[in-house]
């Protein structure tokens, strides 16, 4: 571990911890730090403390976890597709999950967090398999613009279907909030869900890092080193699906985090995915914690959907990356 990495990780951690504190105390109702401290260690049954315990803390934990998971998914996807601008929400995986949630929401019978998660999982699985079909087909001669156009087309398709369902059940604005992402509805149950499903998948993913390194060297090198690139790619993309699904089920569609985070980390720390993936988790968490703080504070007491926020920041970066890539 070189100096740069240590510096980056420690800066990130400090910013993340500051973010945690700010996120808990600031908001439509600002709560003094003293009360925050007391509500954790000397709990009394008053409004501010309830607010901290039941709303702010689960929310901030969720933002950190979701941000981290999104960062890792981006890194994984970019690693195995060897495509610097791959990301689950640009490839339509997130939108597939959104469609499934819209269907579940319309039929009422399986509503609730668990229902949403199952729906999101099925949706993400379906769209993930489609993306898999593309990326396997194009693996040898990967054409960036094609893959991205396919992703855009798939997202349009899923969102269109979801819009029809929402229009017919008179829920289009609810759906739009979902599509734009946000942590409004987070409870302790969401934290458990993200922690269990997302956590396990992320840990497995981190163990995959050496293999992703090998695939990232290129098809031929990978075969030469005795690994089957298709298998690794397939396994990684399958692993992505539960990770994306919990993120969508909890926070809706938060775009561009999976794109920006690994890119910056890679610029700073080099090509080693054993390093990139954990640091992406940390950096993603930091970004989303702060993005959520801003989303809550910009237009108080209303919330700005965080996904729109990340898109508006992410797009300029995305375009800048395209210019840099020299295509």
């Amino acid at each position: 571990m070189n100096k740069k990495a240590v510096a980056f990780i420690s800066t990130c951690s400090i910013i993340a911890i500051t973010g945690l504190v700010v996120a808990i105390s600031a908001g439509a109702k600002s709560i003094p730090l003293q009360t925050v401290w007391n509500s954790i260690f000397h709990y009394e049954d008053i409004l501010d403390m309830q607010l901290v315990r039941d709303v702010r803390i689960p929310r901030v934990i969720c933002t950190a976890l979701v941000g981290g998971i999104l960062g890792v998914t981006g890194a994984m996807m970019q690693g195995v597709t060897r495509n610097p601008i791959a990301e689950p929400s640009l490839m339509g995986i997130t939108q597939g999950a959104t469609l499934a949630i819209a269907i579940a929401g319309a039929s009422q019978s399986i509503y609730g967090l668990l229902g949403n998660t199952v729906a999101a999982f099925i949706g993400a699985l379906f769209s993930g398999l489609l993306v898999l079909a593309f990326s396997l087909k194009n693996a040898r001669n990967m054409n960036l613009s094609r893959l991205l156009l396919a992703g855009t087309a798939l997202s349009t398709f899923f969102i269109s279907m979801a819009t029809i369902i929402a229009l017919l059940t008179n829920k289009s604005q609810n759906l739009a909030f979902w599509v734009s992402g946000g942590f409004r509805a987070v409870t302790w149950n969401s934290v458990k869900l993200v922690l269990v499903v997302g956590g396990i998948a992320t840990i497995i993913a981190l163990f995959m890092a050496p293999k992703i390194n090998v695939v990232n060297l290129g098809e031929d090198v990978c075969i030469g080193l005795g690994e089957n690139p298709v298998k690794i790619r397939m396994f990684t993309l399958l692993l992505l699906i539960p990770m994306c699904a919990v993120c969508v089920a909890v926070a809706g569609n938060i775009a561009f985090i999976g794109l920006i985070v690994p890119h910056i980390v890679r610029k700073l720390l080099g090509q080693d995915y054993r390093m990139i993936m954990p640091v992406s988790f940390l950096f993603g968490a930091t970004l989303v914690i702060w993005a959520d703080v801003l989303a809550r504070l910009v237009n108080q007491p209303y919330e700005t959907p965080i996904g729109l926020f990340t898109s508006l920041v992410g797009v300029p970066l995305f375009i800048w990356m395209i210019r840099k890539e020299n295509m």
Partner: protein
Amino acid sequence: MKKRVFITSIVVSILFVFTFLLAASWGSYSISFGDVIKTFFGQGSLLQRTTIWDIRLPRICVAIVVGVCLSTAGCVLQSVTRNELAEPGMIGINAGAAVAVVLLISYGSTSYYDTIGDVALFVMPIAAIIGALLSGFLIYFLSYKKGVSPTRLILTGIGVNVGINAFISLYQLNMSKGDYNQVLTWTSGSLWGSSWKFFWLVTPLAVVFLLLIMWKAKILDVMDLGDEIATGLGVKVERERRKLFFYAIVLAALATSVAGNIAFLGLLGPHIAKRLVGPVHRRQIPVAAGISSVIIILADSISRNAFSPIEVPAGIMIAIVGVPYFIYLMLRE
């Protein structure tokens, strides 16, 4: 080839007439084909005349103009970017027009379609063109780096599209539920509320630019061969590309100003046409225009009637048909 072109034109024309009659007759008040034709010759009952002349026909005509504009814009963009998957809806040009119109309509008023004044109506296409030109310029400018590479143009366009849509959503989410639904219908592309005014508003300019593009058809053919060969054949590639890009933007903007952001139409027509009559633009553009018109009229009829009395945006219907075709195109390679 001559024979094939001939047959294709005949088939497309027949389809066109058929969908035209279907759209005029199908609806919550259905009129038989015979009566539709009678009404055209001025013999129908008052109810039939009102339904067709004042409600259905303007809508069909607007649909045709929109179909022709978007399809031609698609043809041009596909040659200019040398990417057969390019399309005005996906690279942010329609979105630019849409954002301008949404801002215009909502400016200073809280209600959307019911009370658009005549002045706003006449400013609408202009606003759409300005919006589309701005986003087109942005895309061109951002992808310019010692010339514009086709791939970079498309990728930048996708990025700009996402950004503009995020902006529209941000704006939209602050609206009340009713307004939200109306703007949603419009941003997904719909012919709801089309009248003769809309038709007369966009048709003259559309015809001018269509003619300009037909006049440049040969240059489009040459540009398909690649920048080097085109330069070798005496085409000033960068300049022509800029001009054609401009024409395509104006056409897409005109279509968007009356029908909202309809994606994939600029992809479907040109592709089917290319497979039927080959990549010669003089033939491809008209055939594509015919096919796109047929598609949009059909999609509109379905979206009016399938879930009646709720109307689903026609743009969504087109996306649902268009995406599987698009994916088929990608997998075929």
